[in-house]
């Protein structure tokens, strides 16, 4: 972390996350659903299952399967995105699956699949982090047994300055060393389930970035927790007061 006087385009502090919003139960038809928002980046996730896996040759008799499907809405960015799977969305789907799998307790659900559909309604960088946050909440909401909740944040290095939760402008940073984007996910107890790195960074700086991420993720975890509990407390208002 170099200068403390570094100014970001949206006047945020270097360790400040964009205003977050989380909501559970946004898709009534699904078994579990959630919305997660980082500023202008909005992701919704819907969970269906566990249900029988089809085709049969994909069934795993040892444990259940998690299947994520990430996609960006065609109107999520200024330049229209052609709908349908792309190289990028397939890759991110897999990344999200790997980020969430370690916390799921789905050994008993053999031969079944849990489908997680994630859509990005609006994108301003850090979409995979918003997607992971929404998906983790949706899985919990669907009643899937889990060890913990996953929260994700992206750390950026703009020239020599580390920042939390990069936006599109910062992602395209070109001055000095350019931009390095490090999305990472942690469980509530602080274990890393996913980390990616796009750019270049020294080992020391990476360690610093991870610590910065660990700190930032606590706030995200708080937001997720609050949103999940709100639904129960709202529904069970009477039970709570008695």
């Amino acid at each position, binding site marked *: 972390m170099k200068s403390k006087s570094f100014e970001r385009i949206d006047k945020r502090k270097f360790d400040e996350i964009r205003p977050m919003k989380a909501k559970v139960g946004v898709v009534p038809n699904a078994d579990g659903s959630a919305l997660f928002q980082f500023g202008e980046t909005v992701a919704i996730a819907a969970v269906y299952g566990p249900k029988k896996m089809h085709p049969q040759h994909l069934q795993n008799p040892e444990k259940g399967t998690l299947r994520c499907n990430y996609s960006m809405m065609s109107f999520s960015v200024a330049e229209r995105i052609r709908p349908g799977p792309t190289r990028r969305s397939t890759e991110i789907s897999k990344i999200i699956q790997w980020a969430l799998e370690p916390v799921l307790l789905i050994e008993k659900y053999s031969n079944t699949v849990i489908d997680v559909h994630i859509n990005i309604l609006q994108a301003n960088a850090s979409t995979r982090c918003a997607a992971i946050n929404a998906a983790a909440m949706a899985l919990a909401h669907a009643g899937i047994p889990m060890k*913990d909740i996953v929260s994700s944040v992206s750390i950026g290095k703009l020239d020599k300055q580390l920042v939390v939760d990069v936006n599109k402008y910062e992602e395209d940073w070109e001055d000095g060393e350019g931009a390095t984007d490090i999305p990472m996910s942690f469980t509530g107890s602080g274990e890393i389930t996913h980390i990616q790195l796009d750019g270049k960074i020294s080992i020391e700086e990476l360690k610093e970035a991870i610590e910065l991420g660990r700190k930032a993720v606590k706030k995200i975890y708080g937001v997720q927790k609050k949103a999940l509990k709100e639904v129960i407390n709202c529904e069970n208002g*009477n*039970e709570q007061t008695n």
Partner: protein
Amino acid sequence: MNKRKAVIPGEVIKEDENSLPGEWTEKKGNKIIALRYGLAEEVGRLIKVIPLSGPYQPRKGNIVIGQVELITFNGWIIDIRTFENAFLPLSEIPRYINKESMEDILDIGDTVIAKVRNVGKRGVELSLKSRGLGRVEEGIIFKINSNKVPRVIGKEGSMINLIKKNTECDIIVGQNGFIWVKGDSIEKELLAKKAIMFVAEKSHITGLTEEIIKWFEKEENEK
């Protein structure tokens, strides 16, 4: 009533050396951690999480309602809307069956009321050897969230008996969320369905029994 609080997976419910982990919790050191989203409840030393959502977990002795999915050489595969296949073996039919004409007893697509005989590594085993079990011939069937079934039944069946009395219908509640209703007229059956849906929706209210009595009075007046 015991105090319940909302918990999320991974949350520490209580830090106490003497507490015991119940359903959907685990003990790490002296911390009791929730493994599922729902309400944590403390009964004596035991702490458990009551899930509010999620798939139906078959248990021995449960009454379930399902559809016949497949006929095999020694039984039927029944879809009870859970993550496991349920198997109904020929030997669990309380009468003689000709193996050549198994579809006469239960055909693919038939709805059947059965009892869970065993839950093992190989899946769920069903039985028809009890009173009131067998193929559904008449009446209506609908589904509710299986986590709300205990509220629909009520303490020792108080809620369901109340609904039965008020609607003059025969009702069987499957633990997997399917409910079978049979009355003299379709109006009565629909009233029973409406009442059960009301209970399932308002399952969190304390004093739900009084609420449903009021609801029946209101329904009666509207007629």
